[in-house]
């Protein structure tokens, strides 16, 4: 049933356009592109269209024809803007100067596609795009394109391209400025820079095409391509004609399979897989039902409820544990029952809070009329939510119950230290689980991976003190097959990674003792010592100021670390560094979260990192970051500066089973030694934000789930 819903969304433009009434109603609404081009941009075959995809759609597009394989990850960042990261494998391509043939190259490019104008009754949609922000890459080209829906199943597009998409006639922008007439020769250098000097310059050309949604599943495309494949024609393949034809089949709710006939000589295939983080694969989640509320009064007695006195025995602890909650402490003050809990099971703290409230109604004596629930993360009492028992009882089944309950609830910073629940400390937890670690975009092989077993242990002798570690044993994989002696002139803080992969099958990636504490109102503290990450060990200290509901948070982190031995056991190498950052976090309030870090990086370089993430209440995050430091592009090496994209996927989004686990993946075009940051577990911002008022409010609807 969820798949049906997702499919409706993918085909939404088609289906709604098929209804006569809907056409008039939606004529001014932005329309969605019907497919992705071979470059992974909303488009025809090789050429773009002016439409965008559904807001927040995340798509992976794999496209291949003779000697070219393109893998593109495209995110519809906003309704109008999409961004792509592309990794291409190109065989038998001419070098940039054109005088020799390179058997294989790997090209990485970032693209942007922005819809300037929505389609109207008469006016077409209009978009602008840049296929390689570097401007000097193999796909370096820019375009302006207009698209118009001619009938619910027929659309036409016409555009003008520059760079790789140009070349036929003098640049019309030449009338504005002489500088537009010639495109500067590629100044490749170390690549990876944003280089607007070349954008929209040089000779231009026209492109265009039509697409026909023949049935709800079949789409046929014909286009005139202005891409002359100058570096591929004659070596990689023969470009005999500018005409391309494609047939796309909507194979499933998220999958489209396309066959193309390209340039009069080649057959190509393409698979596009698109999902939308806003629509969970498993809907709102197949969480087992929560316990029902026990209202006070005679009806409870009639049902034979055991009247349990709070504080008597471990009944409350056990009941909380059944709901995936750890009871840290409890006390009764007059008619208020206070509990301190830690959420073990739920992706969203609001759901943990709701479950705790239900359990409390069952266990608290009828004389209690208020619950004060403190949410604790790593021993830090983050927030306390005060709930009226009357309102809980009256709103259990109300359709607006969550909102009305929130209106009557108070969320305060921190919480009092309560008498520890019997048997809570010391706590010991051990887990054995498989792991996978990956290396993406190694030039010898786009994906390398290791799989193995990880034994994790966690010991909490007292609230806020966490001793934890992980031992990993590799069972299979090829991460150790990379062999690239680094050419870095900086301290080899990250480019030695391949030596760590070769270091041994059984490793200790992490072994630390940490102390988490609340130094004051809105303040959080952490001190961590030990083997902090696979490559560095030492001491890390952090202080975070983050009000319960404020948009701004500030943090400072200082670390004194030393490089670890390649075997990732207990020894160290000689390199030491003091590294640290001052960080500002800002919640823009529309799902976008910005972060700026200023400080000293692992190689001793000084600079700043800017990050922007779009995040969803269900825990999904899609973001990008870039770091500039006082390391020159030449010293940094390939890529010129550190940058990348990152994805966080909550596991429960896919499985529908409640879980706090998430999959985090960072993709960098190149990992070098400049702008590299230490990795430390338990950084405070991510640790506490979900249990703060703003985090609770973001997913408050889950209170009753």
């Amino acid at each position: 049933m969820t798949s049906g819903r997702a499919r409706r969304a993918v085909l939404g433009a088609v289906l709604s356009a098929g209804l006569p009434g809907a056409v008039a109603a939606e004529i001014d609404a932005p329309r969605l592109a019907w497919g992705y081009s071979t470059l992974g941009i909303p488009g025809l075959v090789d050429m773009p269209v002016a439409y965008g995809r559904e807001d927040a759609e995340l798509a992976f597009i794999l496209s291949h024809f003779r000697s070219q394989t393109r893998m593109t990850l495209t995110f519809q960042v906003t309704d109008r803007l999409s961004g792509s990261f592309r990794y291409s494998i190109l065989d038998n391509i001419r070098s940039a100067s054109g005088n020799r043939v390179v058997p294989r190259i790997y090209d990485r490019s970032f693209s942007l596609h922005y819809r300037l104008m929505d389609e109207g009754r008469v006016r077409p949609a209009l978009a602008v795009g840049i296929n390689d922000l570097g401007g000097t890459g193999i796909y370096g080209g820019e375009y302006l394109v207009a698209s118009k829906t001619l009938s619910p199943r027929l659309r036409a597009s016409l555009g003008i391209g520059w760079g790789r998409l140009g070349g036929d006639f003098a640049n019309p922008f030449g009338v504005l400025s002489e500088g537009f007439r010639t495109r500067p020769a590629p100044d490749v250098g170390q690549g990876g820079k944003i280089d607007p000097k070349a954008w929209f310059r040089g000779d231009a050309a026209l492109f265009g095409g039509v697409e026909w949604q023949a049935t709800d599943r079949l789409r046929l495309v014909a286009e005139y391509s202005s891409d002359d494949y100058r570096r591929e024609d004659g070596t990689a393949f023969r470009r005999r004609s500018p005409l391309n034809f494609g047939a796309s089949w909507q194979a499933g709710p998220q999958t489209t399979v396309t066959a193309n006939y390209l340039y009069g000589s080649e057959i190509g295939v393409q698979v596009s897989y698109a999902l939308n983080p806003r629509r969970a694969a498993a809907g709102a989640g197949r969480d087992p039902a929560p316990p029902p509320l026990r209202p006070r009064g005679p009806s409870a007695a009639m049902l034979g409820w055991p009247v349990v006195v709070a504080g008597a025995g471990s009944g409350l602890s056990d009941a909380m544990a059944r709901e995936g909650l750890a009871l840290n402490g409890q006390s009764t003050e007059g008619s208020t029952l206070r509990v301190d809990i830690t959420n073990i099971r739920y992706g969203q703290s609001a759901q943990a809070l709701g479950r705790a409230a239900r359990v409390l109604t069952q266990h608290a004596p009828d004389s209690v009329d208020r619950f004060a629930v403190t949410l604790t993360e790593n021993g830090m009492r983050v927030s306390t939510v005060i709930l009226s028992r009357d309102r809980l009882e009256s709103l259990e089944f109300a359709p607006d119950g969550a909102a009305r309950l929130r209106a009557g609830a108070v969320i305060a910073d921190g919480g009092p230290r309560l008498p520890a629940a019997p048997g809570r400390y010391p706590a010991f937890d051990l887990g054995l689980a498989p792991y996978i670690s990956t290396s993406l975009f190694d030039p010898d092989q786009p994906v390398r991976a290791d799989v193995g077993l990880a034994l994790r242990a966690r010991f909490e002798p007292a609230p806020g003190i966490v001793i934890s570690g992980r031992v990993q044993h590799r069972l299979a994989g090829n991460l150790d097959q990379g062999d690239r002696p680094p050419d870095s002139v900086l301290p080899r803080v990250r480019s030695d990674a391949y030596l760590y992969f070769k270091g041994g099958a059984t490793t200790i990636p992490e072994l630390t003792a940490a102390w988490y504490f609340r130094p004051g109102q809105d303040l959080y503290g952490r001190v961590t010592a030990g083997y902090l990450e696979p490559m560095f060990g030492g001491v890390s200290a952090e202080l975070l100021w983050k009000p319960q509901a404020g948009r701004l948070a500030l943090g400072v982190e200082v670390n004194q670390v030393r490089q670890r031995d390649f075997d990732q056991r207990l020894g160290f190498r000689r390199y030491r560094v003091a590294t640290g950052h001052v960080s500002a976090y800002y919640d823009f309030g529309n799902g976008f979260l910005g972060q700026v870090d200023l400080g000293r990086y692992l190689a001793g370089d000084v600079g700043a990192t800017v990050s922007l993430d779009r995040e969803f209440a269900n825990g999904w995050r899609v973001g990008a970051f870039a770091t500039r430091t006082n390391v020159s592009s030449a010293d940094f090496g390939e890529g010129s500066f550190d940058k990348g994209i990152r994805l966080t996927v909550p596991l429960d989004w896919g499985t529908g089973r409640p879980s706090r686990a998430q999959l985090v993946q960072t993709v960098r075009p190149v990992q070098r030694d400049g702008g590299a940051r230490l990795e430390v577990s338990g950084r405070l911002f991510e640790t506490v934000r979900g249990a703060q008022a703003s985090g609770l409010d973001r997913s408050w609807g889950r209170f009753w789930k």
Partner: protein
Amino acid sequence: MMRALAPFAVALCACVPVDVPGLAPQPAEPALTGPERIEARIPSRGAVATLGPVGRNGDTVTWTTADGVTLALAGGVLVATRGLGPDLMGAEVGPLRAALAGRGAAGLLPRRHAYLDGENRVATLELTCRLAMAAPAAADAGLRRMEETCAGAGQSFVNSYWIGAGGSVVRSVQWIGPEVGPVTISAPLL
């Protein structure tokens, strides 16, 4: 462009925690509070289950299956589900209950449902319903059958309630939501 000789690229922390440490035992079989049982069928899931009572809040009784799916019935009218995935989070069915009981004005009966969307927001579905006595059919086994026809926000459904001699709902077909569709509830089997 990035040159062919790119150095090693590494994703440092790409560990997939397949299991999370949990100090929690899995939920035990729920403790039932009475001997009554109802049977529920959800055709879209191909599911049939017997449910027993686990809680009562006012006149709303929460019934549970052995594997953690609950239905909350207020005077036989469904007001919430849990454990199904796209659950009915809550419902306002006061006018319908009054009309079923023969109280209140006939005519248009408002009904409101709440669901959770993929971003944890409460999505409210406003419906307008009509309640009418259905023509007797052989399958009614002599029971009075009322039909509630509802529509709103692109959704429409018909709920049926079979009323027993005591005026209570003894059997019903009720719509849970757009994804799950209807549930058939046969009430109390003692």
